[in-house]
């Protein structure tokens, strides 16, 4: 292990390491801690200039209550779920198929198609913006969750395919080969031999895509205008304009918006990190 484990070091180093850990964490998460504290701070504290001391009393229920009662944040959160969940299912589903195709068959265009998926995944969003917005307008999906779902599904399919293809490549090929010799059809090999082995990859990818799509802000501003379809990132931004200097509300709203992906991350931590690094193992 590198660096040398602290257990092997002198007691002085061991103890200072144990002290430094929480200190470093607090410094690192300082902006977050500040926002969390502000979200439970009564408005009167802010007016009195108490920005950084302890809140004079716990106003969490008051602030979070006000955020949900007086703003459309509940609706925004719901919209985010309406956009994110179908996208995760769609993109992961598509990439199981395309990843299987690229991992499993030798054909001339194989590597080319793979690299097109990879490269497409790297392009800046702005090069897609005008035509995609135009297409969404023409198909009547502008200002609805469906336009966003379709776009995100297609775009994320690039990264997902890279990920699934590398995962399937790491599976024992003999398994597929022997099924083929038995005369099992290609579709059944996919559905009954490969799919059951892909569960960890599907879990890892789902958490990642959930986070990516939930946190998207750019496409939400390009393809949605009204509150009825607006996800929470864009919603929070518009609320920020309404709540000028009401930092206790902005903070509470930010925490609400950040919570679903954070909860997801903590529940599925192992999968999340496996996902980030698995997608990146080749390279």
């Amino acid at each position, binding site marked *: *292990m*590198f660096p040398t484990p602290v257990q092997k070091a002198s007691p002085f180093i061991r103890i200072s390491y144990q002290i430094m850990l929480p200190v470093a964490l607090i410094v690192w998460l300082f902006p977050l801690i500040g*926002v969390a504290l502000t979200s439970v701070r009564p408005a009167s504290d802010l007016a009195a200039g108490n920005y950084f001391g302890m809140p004079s009393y716990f106003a969490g229920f008051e602030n979070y209550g006000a955020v949900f009662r007086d703003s459309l944040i509940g609706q925004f959160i719901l919209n985010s779920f309406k956009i994110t969940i179908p996208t995760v299912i769609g993109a992961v589903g598509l990439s199981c198929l395309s990843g299987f*195709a690229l991992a499993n068959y030798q054909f001339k265009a*194989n590597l080319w198609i793979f690299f097109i998926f990879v490269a497409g995944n790297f392009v800046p969003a702005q090069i897609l913006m005008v*035509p995609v*917005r135009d297409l969404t307008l023409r198909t009547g999906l502008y200002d609805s969750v469906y336009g966003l779902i379709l776009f995100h599904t297609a775009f994320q399919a690039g990264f997902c395919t890279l990920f699934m293809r590398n995962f399937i490549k790491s599976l024992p090929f003999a398994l597929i080969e022997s099924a083929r010799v038995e005369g099992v059809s290609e579709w059944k090999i996919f559905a009954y031999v490969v799919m059951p082995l892909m569960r960890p990859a599907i879990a890892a990818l789902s958490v990642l895509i959930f986070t990516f799509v939930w946190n998207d802000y*750019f496409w939400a501003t390009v393809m949605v205008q009204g509150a009825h379809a607006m996800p929470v990132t864009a919603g929070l931004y518009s609320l920020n304009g309404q709540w000028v200097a009401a930092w206790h509300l902005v903070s509470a709203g930010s925490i609400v*918006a950040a919570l679903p992906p954070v909860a997801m991350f903590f529940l599925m*931590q192992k999968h999340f990190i496996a996902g980030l690094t698995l997608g990146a193992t080749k390279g």
Partner: protein
Amino acid sequence: MTTAVSPPVQLGWFRRNQIKLAPWLFLAPGLIMFFIYVLAPIGQSIWISFFDWDGLGKATWIGLGNYVEMLDDTNFYISLKNNLLWLVLYMLSVPAGLGIALFLNQNVVGIRLYKSLFFFPFVISQVVVGLMFTWFYAPDFGLLSGLIQAITGSKVAILADDRYATYGIIAAGLWPQIAYVMILYLTGLNNINPEQIEAARMDHAKGFALFWHIILPQLRPATFIAVVVTVIGALRSFDLVSIMTHGGPYGSTRVLSYYMYEQALSEYGYRMGYGAAIAVVLFLIMMVFITFFITRMIAQERNG
């Protein structure tokens, strides 16, 4: 299992050609979607960049007009310069992430929780990160401004001052990016062959020499990915600029992605053609890096 291999006579055309057809059938749904929403729009954007178009009416062909206009556009150069600044300063997240990873690569009680908490900023949306730092930087009561005032005695409104605003935004962007790089390196450190480290220690390699000659070369795959995601992250910067300053003050924090959006869609008018032309420039810059990454990946695919 015994069972008969079905006699070839009964095989239909589909079954006979299954192996050839199957990859295309499996690929079709994903590839079609990807074509409609990613590949075709790249071509369309390039095409649109040769027109003067407000997004609704008739488009007028102006050839290279948009690109010629760009050559004399101060705002374009400001954006381009800021993009370079992002690119250079964002690279700091690679050593910083490595540093934190080395710090956290220990086996003490609760270290797993520490690692996850350090990773936190990456999971949070950039909108929230932007709001957090705006508050952090706020003049009068923002914590950082307070600190600066205590040290230098003068007030600084970071995001309202065109000398500092871009740096302030980049600092906010570095926060989640460092977390991302850190996690890549933590996994990399985990995969290092412990025997090699022991062998090196036997030979009295220690501290920095051990790190430089033994550890760092083994972390190369992690470094490669870290550089890739950091370059892409830097060139994609849009959210933070939009949230924290709207490109201001006086347009000094614009980056190409934001300037493009402003030209094409905001109150400054719907100049789709000019916007598309800016996007093409950004795309070409990105292509330089994409080509580099892909050639490396191809080489590895061939070897592996």
